[in-house]
Structures are given as C-alpha cells and as structure tokens.
C-alpha cells in the first residue's frame, strides 16, 4: 500500500519534523514521543505557530493536506516502533474531529498492518453523541481495534 507522506527529518531520538506545504503556506510540523512509564510513549503532534513561534496542536492549517499529514505522523510512529520495537505508542487527537481523522486513517490501513497491533479505547457515551457506529458493550474498555467502532484513544505496538 502506497500512502503519500512528507519527507521526515529526525531532530533527536524522540522528535521528528516535517513540513506541510500547500495553499496556506509552509508549516513546520513536530512529532515527539514522550515517555510515560511502563514502556509506553505518548505521540504528541503539533505545528509551529508562525506568529508566536510556539508549537500548538489546535492550529488549523487549511493546507488541504490532512490525509498526507496523517500518513506522515503515522509514518513517524512506525519508524519509532522500528527503532524501539518493545515499546507501545499511545495516541489521541487534540479534538474529537482529529481523533475521528485518526480513526479513519487507521481504518484505511487496518487490514495491511500485519506487524503492528492497534488497541482502541471507547469512552462511555450516549448513543447520540458519537463519531461513528456505537457499540455500548465496548464502553470503558481497551480492545483490539476493529472497523466501524468510534474510539477515543489508540495504542499501537509491534506484534
């Protein structure tokens, strides 16, 4: 499967950088894996705000490349797991819509992820407040990710 990604630089052992390029301009994007204990790293992701110089995960770039950005961020996770094969990577979106975007990206590649396993967490919620099909039996549980379920957080690791 060939997903379009940006070229990625490794800034240090835990930090990766790439550039989003599109009609709104060129934006510096950062991914950092922060250790949380128990062999688990948090995947943090954000863009540099060109005015403040600060990294922020709520900036809306409107560069028309969200799929390419998502594939690039996912690529950093795979690269990190290749160099740290015993760890687990936790990820969630900074907003519900971004978590939904993660979900869509995972759904797209789930069937070809052979070497990797993804677990998802479904928070308890009302059936009407949802981002996808709701399975009340999964509320408050971590389970292997399957198609059609709306998850709130993900954990990826090598099999």
């Amino acid at each position, binding site marked *: *499967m060939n997903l379009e990604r940006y070229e990625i630089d490794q800034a240090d052992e835990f930090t990766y950088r790439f550039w989003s390029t599109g009609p709104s301009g060129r934006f510096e994007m*950062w991914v950092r894996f922060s250790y949380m204990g128990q062999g688990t790293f948090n995947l943090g992701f954000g863009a540099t705000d060109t005015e403040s110089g600060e990294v922020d995960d709520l900036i809306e770039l409107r560069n028309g490349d969200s799929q390419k950005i998502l594939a690039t961020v996912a690529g950093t996770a795979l690269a990190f797991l290749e160099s740290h094969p015993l760890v687990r990577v936790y990820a969630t979106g900074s907003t519900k819509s971004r978590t939904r975007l993660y979900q869509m990206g995972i759904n797209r590649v789930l069937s070809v992820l052979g070497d990797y396993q993804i677990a998802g967490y479904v928070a308890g919620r009302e059936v009407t407040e949802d981002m996808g099909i709701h399975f009340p039996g999964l509320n408050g549980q971590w389970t292997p990710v399957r198609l059609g379920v709306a998850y709130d957080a993900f954990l990826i690791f090598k099999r």
Partner: protein
Amino acid sequence: MSLIKAPKIKRARGPVVYPVNMDEFFERKANEARAFLEKHPVPEHLFKKK
C-alpha cells in the same frame, strides 16, 4: 508481514531550532495521556504475543 512500511528517515541537517515551548508543550501532552492511562489502564492480555 505488514504491507505498510516505516518510512526512511534522515537525521536533520544543521542545528534544529525548536519552538520556544517545545518541552513544556509535549510534557503537558504526556501528562494528560499518563493521567488517562492511569484512569483507564490497558489490560496486559492485549500485549500477549500470539
């Protein structure tokens, strides 16, 4: 075997200038995630090798 390959990644050339709030920002994100996982721990059986 996975059909999705990890990308080839090069070391950044030259000095890297990080955003001014880089460490603080990502540490805050990690703390939020850590709190979430403490509240909703992942069952160990999910990690058992098949």
